[in-house]
């Protein structure tokens, strides 16, 4: 299987099983709940909007984690990819790419709706979308690494949350900070955290898959 073939396969499986509709709907629901809970205070909503979108994105990214790696390990797909000459790190990198393509564009589209709910103006919305564009690759990488680490555990979903959410804190801090209008230094830190996760996740996930195989 080629790299493109593997990314396309993961993407097709993610969408055809309906697995990616749920996170996007969940994201929107969380974004809708907040204005109801906080009340129609536009100034307050505008202030918390960016942070709420980031927290919702984080929780939404957690939903599909259980089916990112575990099913492929169980079905022997990872074994067969290794036999076909893939390294575990390469498999993980392809999974990060597929996971990001599957959930980030949809999430960013849904953010337009969320932005309207929080009465964000054009500039704030552009900043928020920019921060999501920079941060979601890191979120996807973290998701795949968590999925590989928790694959095969009973109640993997709950454990995945405990593993992933603390590690996602830097993304949340810098991402939400940028949504609120941080300086150039904030962008650099957000990109640095995202890059670190994207570069590190295939190594961690690859090692976890190798351990799971033996």
């Amino acid at each position: 299987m080629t790299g493109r073939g593997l990314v396309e396969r993961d993407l097709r499986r993610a969408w055809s099983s309906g697995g990616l509709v749920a996170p996007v709907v969940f994201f929107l629901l969380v974004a809708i709940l907040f204005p109801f809970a906080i009340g129609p205070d536009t100034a307050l909503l505008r202030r918390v909007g960016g942070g709420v979108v980031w927290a919702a994105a984080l929780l939404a990214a957690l939903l599909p984690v259980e089916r990112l790696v575990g099913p492929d390990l169980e079905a022997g797909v990872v074994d067969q990819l290794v036999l076909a000459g893939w390294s575990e790190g390469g498999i993980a990198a392809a999974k990060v790419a597929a996971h990001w393509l599957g959930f980030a564009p949809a999430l960013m589209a849904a953010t337009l709706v969320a932005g309207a709910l929080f009465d964000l103006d054009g500039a704030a919305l552009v900043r928020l979308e920019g921060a999501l564009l920079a941060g979601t690759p890191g979120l996807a990488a973290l998701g795949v690494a968590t999925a590989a680490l928790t694959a095969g555990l009973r109640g993997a979903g709950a454990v995945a949350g405990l593993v992933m959410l603390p590690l996602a804190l830097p993304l949340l801090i810098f991402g939400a900070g940028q949504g609120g209008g941080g300086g150039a230094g904030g962008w650099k830190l957000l990109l640095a955290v995202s890059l670190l996760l994207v570069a590190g996740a295939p190594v961690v996930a690859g090692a976890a898959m190798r351990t799971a195989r033996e």
Partner: protein
Amino acid sequence: MSLLAFRGVACRRGGRMLFEGLEFTLARGGALSVTGANGAGKSSLLRIAAGLLAPAAGTVERVAAGLADARAALDEELPLARAIGQWIGRAEAGAALDRWALAALAGVPVRLLSTGQRQRANLARATAGGRALWLLDEPANGLDAPSRGILEAEIARHRAGGGAAVVATHQPVAMPGAAAVAL
């Protein structure tokens, strides 16, 4: 030239030594039948031969292999031809389905296949793609008599073409002139 050589190989699983000091070589055209009780390490031997498991001791020389074990590694929701085509390419998938008498099922989703059909699909995937070494774990599981005939004929054809096969099985699979390893 040998396709697979085990030299003093030991296998330890979960702190228990399954076998040690295992030696054999498998040349082109050869076949090896692996037998042993449940849990004796037949599947582990095949995974070591495939390079998926590191031996606890000893060295393994091997070429790239096709492995068919208990897991078919086929996407359940896809039609059979596409599921196999993902691994070996569309063109080759058609030929593989013909060889294993699966052509009529090309459009059927994998999740609807019976045990025996699924096993034939598994074998079709593992044995396509021109791998010289076949590693088959209980290949006759779930197969009816005609399908077992296909399996034996395919192994014979593969060996005649210069390939080799390692077969771990409880059921009799006819492989003339095959060496045997009992664990």
